[in-house]
């Protein structure tokens, strides 16, 4: 698993993936997103190199673009998708602890988070925290609603709904 972080600018993905391609590497699942103006990407990379070799392959691009690189050997592989069956939407006046409270309640109910994204919106004086979670649970939506019901008193709105994936 290759992680790159740095100041965002156009062309980073192109330079990095070109270097990987020329070194004989293959890419699998990847997720790039701009967080607070920073470029971030995590990619599954397979190739002939050791982690040290991969660092060397990427050194020119990493130096030129001012990125920080991190490589973790992983045993995971492709074709291991889990399909989420529950969606949780959270909004509330921004304060510390929202994520810990919501995910803590969900974890206690056996909910497995597959995707999570969050953002801070509103105006800077009155920021609003918005989070969207998709995951898998054996529990009913009603049971999960019960699990997060107490959080309303903490000033956050938590909406739990089923995700019906259409196969056609």
């Amino acid at each position: 698993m290759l992680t790159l972080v740095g100041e965002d600018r156009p062309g980073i993905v192109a330079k990095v993936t070109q270097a990987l391609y020329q070194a004989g590497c293959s890419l699998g699942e990847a997720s790039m997103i701009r967080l607070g103006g920073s470029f971030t990407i995590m990619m599954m990379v397979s190739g002939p190199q050791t982690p040290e070799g991969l660092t060397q392959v990427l050194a020119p691009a990493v130096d030129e673009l001012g990125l920080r690189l991190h490589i973790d050997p992983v045993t995971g592989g492709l074709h291991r998708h889990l399909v989420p069956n529950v969606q949780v939407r959270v909004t509330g006046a921004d304060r510390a602890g929202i994520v810990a409270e919501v995910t803590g309640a969900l974890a206690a109910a056996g909910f497995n988070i597959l995707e999570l994204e969050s953002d801070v919106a509103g105006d800077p004086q009155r920021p609003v925290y918005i989070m969207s979670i998709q995951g898998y649970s054996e529990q009913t939506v009603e049971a999960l609603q019960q699990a997060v019901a107490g959080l309303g008193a903490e000033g956050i709105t938590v909406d739990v709904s089923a995700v019906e994936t259409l196969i056609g």
Partner: protein
Amino acid sequence: MAVLDILTLPDERLRQVSQSVTRFDAELRAFVADLEETRLAGPAAVGIAAPQVGRFERIVIVDVSGKKGVANHGHLVLVNPEITHWEGFEVGREGCLSVPDFTGNVIRATRIRLAARDPHGAELQFEMEGFEARAVQHEMDHLDGLLFVDRVVSRRTDLFQRKVYQKGGPTR
């Protein structure tokens, strides 16, 4: 009756535009029976379209009656279907027999009106919404050589910038 082979991405034949059915005969009905058997043989699919099994005619089957709490018209065989009206839009997660091991979010119209024929050539009209309307739109895309992967949107996509449901998907 037979379970037919399903074409999967990147098979170029899935990109073909299918022709209207002109003969409503016993052969067509036998094919529809095979198509239904094929739908039921795979992972819980709520629909299937003829081009997915390599027959490039405008025939789809949709049946969402197995989903709890979903408004539906039961088991539908739609020949030469056309959407005559649509309104609203919403995001939902889709997968496809022709795109194994991948699901993604797609924008579809919430409510549609539909004209089609049954396998005997009789005219059909439906008004439908939600999951059933989504299934019909997904299957009808196959008739125009489109797959849901052509319409996948990021979860971060700003829905409110898209006031109009765009028929035909992205320009390719």
